């Protein structure tokens, strides 16, 4: 890093929206520049900064090839960041469309659409392909779990809608994300009811037909019942069209675009069974007597079962988005605003910055702001995961969505509407829930070739049955082909990843860990080295009294004298001592004649005697004997603290240890990381002795002391080079380069400032337990995804051969198409249910807390 030369913005790019993109761009440029550290990517401004003398045209080509359209910045006007795109990255697309910047005119724009009619992994592929085919679109991503698609690039939103519609699905731009949520819930409820009605009708007919067949002893067509079967066939067709029409139209639209999806399989399967049956019913003479069997009930029942499966799936999907809904519910509807001395209840969207707002105990805070009057305790657990209410007084910041538990306060609004921390959190969680980790992209690739392959297998199975199967061969070939088509629907495959990601990201948010990207979620599970910044991460970040010892055990006097001196000082050490005195309910003595002596300490006077607080060297030079305090002073130094000796006249009163105290739970959190098999390393700018003391105290495996802030990124890169999957934990500002260089960056203790681009995961509270929590949740989520994918693959790879009749030669078994329909529905319901199981996950910290209670 030391050799890093000055970088200048050289390229404008589009489509880069996360740290994964930054890494991709850096590695694309590495061969040209010679080192990834010599590249700086600004996600906000969508620019890449490079050292002088680099061929920018070549650099632009490399970045474009990596999937991010880039062009060299030619003149100064190009250098200005595209404000539209900055806004769009952080605000919902709806705003852009409303306020006229919209329709994707900025580089790196993201346009979010709700998509209807998508049911499986193939649909995802088709929709993403359709979006990418629109001119100007550089990336597209469809989230099956919440049926939204996000396109990156610059294109007219109507063109995107047309592209999706022509691919066979419905689409609309999300105008107002909040309204869209409510609308989506209402739509889902309506769809759920529709599906249940359709399911009842088609299953009713199927069961009726079966009963009829059994009641009359046969599903075979004879001369006597031929017309009845023809009429029943027409009735079945009517039911198929009314209750399963969406499968046929979906299949047709996909087919026209050379695509195949779940609809294709259902449409082909049910149509094959119906066509065969109607041929049997109309011209029974054309087939051998044994083959005159009708399968109308199969067509009706398959559609019924799949409608049932989709209804159950829809209900379970609703539960996965609970985390976001809970966040949405935190928003207050009204605010008690004081304008011109008058208090009035206003809808929260009418609150303006600088408005004064009164909040009474038990009320939710409507917007972010700063307390101007009153003290209280505020429950921030909903945002930070921190269970204890936090004391707040004048000048402290408060956030929308938190609960005022104690006193009445008046505060000044600083951030309103979509700018509040809560709104940002909601946006972030939603975005991350929709993102797809690498593992999910694999499933998509497989499923795009899957459906046509299944069609080939179905035809092949039919031919084999026809040529070598027993009589009636034509019936067997039809049954085998239909069953293969029906059982092979890849819906479980399509749902496997997004469902788990959605629940996992929501779960992490519950614990106060905001995951920005699906990739971060996946990588966090693989971490084997966590590098911690010291100040503010392991320690509190400000000095505090860690120990105090009085010669005659009178600690009250010690603190009263020390506070009496320090109340005149504004030094951080003085603040620490004052805080301790306050905590111990000790009132400061009236020390006068305060004087600060640089490099020595402070002194004053009480009752005509000198009061001194300072280092040993100074006090001993003043003739005070401190030998009785040596042991205690050594103990303080061993804990990386500074011993401050207090003398009154010529007598030693005691010693106070002040240090940047290690957070109470740091040691326990580091132990949890060790338990998870992760090495923990610390980097700090402090001297070696302090670093060693803290490392020993907290159980850290390794440390690097006297590291300059800019060298932290180099250490991260060095450890990655050694083969570790590295997490960097630090604050989002000083440690930004190191956070970005790590596989996963954790920005810690940022409270309500969630808009940290450099970190993959933002921890809302200061505790290191957040890191361990996020890693545990990540591992559980990845495990859940693996289970889902494994289940889906196993289901298909076992189901298809059985459906094709592989068991027939051994046991004489041929699966019925109805059973295939039921199995297919069961497979997607299983995947969704398994993902929902994650909602019950508890991190080891939480579980042990509950046990203790």
């Amino acid at each position, binding site marked *: 890093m030391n050799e890093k030369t000055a970088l200048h913005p050289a390229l404008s790019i589009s*489509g880069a*929206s*996360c740290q*994964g*993109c930054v890494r991709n761009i850096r590695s694309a440029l590495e061969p040209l520049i010679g080192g990834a550290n010599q590249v700086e990517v600004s996600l906000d401004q969508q620019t890449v900064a490079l050292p002088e003398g680099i061929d920018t045209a070549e650099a632009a080509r490399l970045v474009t090839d990596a*999937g*991010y359209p880039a062009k060299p910045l030619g003149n100064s006007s190009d250098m200005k960041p595209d404000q539209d795109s900055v806004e769009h990255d952080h605000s919902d697309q709806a705003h852009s469309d409303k306020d006229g910047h919209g329709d994707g005119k900025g580089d790196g724009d*993201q346009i979010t659409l709700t998509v209807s009619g998508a049911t499986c992994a193939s649909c995802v592929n088709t929709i993403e*392909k359709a979006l*990418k*085919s629109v001119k100007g679109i*550089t*990336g*597209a*991503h469809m989230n099956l779990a919440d049926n939204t698609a*996000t396109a*990156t690039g610059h294109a007219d939103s109507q063109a995107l809608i047309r592209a999706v519609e022509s691919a066979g699905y419905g689409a609309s731009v999300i105008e107002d994300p909040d309204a869209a949520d409510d609308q989506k819930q209402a739509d889902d409820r309506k769809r759920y009811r529709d599906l249940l009605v359709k399911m009842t009708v088609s299953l009713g007919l199927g069961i009726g037909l079966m009963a009829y067949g059994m009641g009359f002893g046969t599903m075979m067509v004879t001369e006597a019942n031929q017309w009845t079967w023809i009429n029943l066939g027409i009735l079945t067709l009517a039911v198929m069209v009314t209750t399963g029409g969406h499968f046929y139209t979906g299949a047709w639209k996909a*087919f026209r*675009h*050379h*695509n*195949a999806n779940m609809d294709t399989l259902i449409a082909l399967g049910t149509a094959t069974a119906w066509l065969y049956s109607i041929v049997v019913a109309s011209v029974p003479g054309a087939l051998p007597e044994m083959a005159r069997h009708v399968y109308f009930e199969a067509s009706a029942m398959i559609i019924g079962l799949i409608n049932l499966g989709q209804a159950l799936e829809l209900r379970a999907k609703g539960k996965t988005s609970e985390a976001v809904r809970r966040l949405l519910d935190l928003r207050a509807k009204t605010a008690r605003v004081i304008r011109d001395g008058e208090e009035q209840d206003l809808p929260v969207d009418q609150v303006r910055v600088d408005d004064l707002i009164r909040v009474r105990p038990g009320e939710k805070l409507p917007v972010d702001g700063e307390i101007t009057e009153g003290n209280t305790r505020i429950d921030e657990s909903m945002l930070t995961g921190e269970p204890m209410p936090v004391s707040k007084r004048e000048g402290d910041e408060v956030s929308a969505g938190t609960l005022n538990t104690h006193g009445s306060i008046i505060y000044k609004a600083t951030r309103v509407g979509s700018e509040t921390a809560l709104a940002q959190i909601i946006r972030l969680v939603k975005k991350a829930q929709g*993102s*797809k980790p*690498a593992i999910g*992209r694999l499933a998509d690739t497989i499923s795009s*070739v899957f*459906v*046509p392959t299944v*069609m*080939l297998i179905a*035809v*092949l199975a*039919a*031919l084999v049955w*026809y*040529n070598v199967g027993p009589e009636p061969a034509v019936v067997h070939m039809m049954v085998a082909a239909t069953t293969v088509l029906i059982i092979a629907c890849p819906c479980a495959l399509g749902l496997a990843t997004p469902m788990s990601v959605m629940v996992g990201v929501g779960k992490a948010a519950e614990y106060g860990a905001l995951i920005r990207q*699906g*990739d971060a979620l996946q990588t966090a599970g693989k971490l084997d080295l966590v590098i911690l910044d010291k100040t503010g991460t392991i320690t509190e970040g400000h000095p505090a009294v860690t120990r105090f010892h009085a010669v005659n055990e009178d600690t009250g006097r010690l603190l009263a004298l020390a506070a009496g001196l320090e109340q005149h000082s504004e030094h951080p050490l003085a603040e620490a001592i004052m805080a301790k005195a306050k905590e111990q309910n000790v009132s400061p003595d009236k020390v006068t004649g305060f004087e600060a002596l640089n490099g020595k300490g402070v002194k004053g006077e009480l009752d005509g005697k000198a009061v001194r607080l300072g280092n040993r060297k100074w006090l001993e030079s003043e003739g005070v004997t401190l030998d009785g305090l040596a042991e205690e002073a050594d103990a303080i130094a061993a804990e990386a603290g500074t011993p401050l000796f207090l003398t009154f006249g010529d007598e030693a009163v005691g010693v106070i240890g002040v240090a940047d105290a290690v957070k109470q739970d740091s040691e326990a959190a580091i132990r949890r990381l060790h338990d998870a098999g992760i090495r923990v390393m610390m980097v700090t700018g402090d001297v070696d002795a302090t670093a060693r003391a803290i490392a020993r105290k907290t159980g850290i495996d390794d440390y690097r002391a006297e590291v300059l802030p800019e060298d932290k990124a180099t250490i991260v890169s060095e450890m990655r080079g050694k083969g570790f999957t590295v997490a960097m934990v630090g604050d989002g500002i000083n440690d930004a380069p190191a956070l970005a260089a790590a596989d996963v960056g954790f920005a810690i203790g940022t409270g309500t400032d969630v808009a940290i681009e450099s970190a993959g995961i933002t921890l809302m509270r200061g505790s290191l337990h957040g890191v361990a929590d996020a890693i545990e949740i990540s591992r559980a989520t990845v495990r859940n995804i693996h289970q889902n994918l494994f289940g889906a693959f196993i289901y298909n790879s076992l189901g298809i051969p059985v459906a094709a009749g592989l068991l027939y030669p051994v046991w004489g078994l041929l699966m019925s198409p109805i059973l295939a329909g039921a199995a297919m529905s069961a497979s997607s319901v299983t995947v969704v249910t398994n993902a929902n199981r994650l909602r019950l996950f508890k991190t080891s910290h939480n579980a042990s807390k509950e046990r203790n209670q």
Partner: protein
Amino acid sequence: MSTLLVNAGGLLLMAAIVWWFWLSPSADSESGHDHSHHH
């Protein structure tokens, strides 16, 4: 005769599937632009 027809029909159908979903121009040109980007 019917065996021949059914088998030939089946093979033709398989060829048609392969052609329509993999070899025909529109499917090809679209997948060619398929960046592995995840947004």
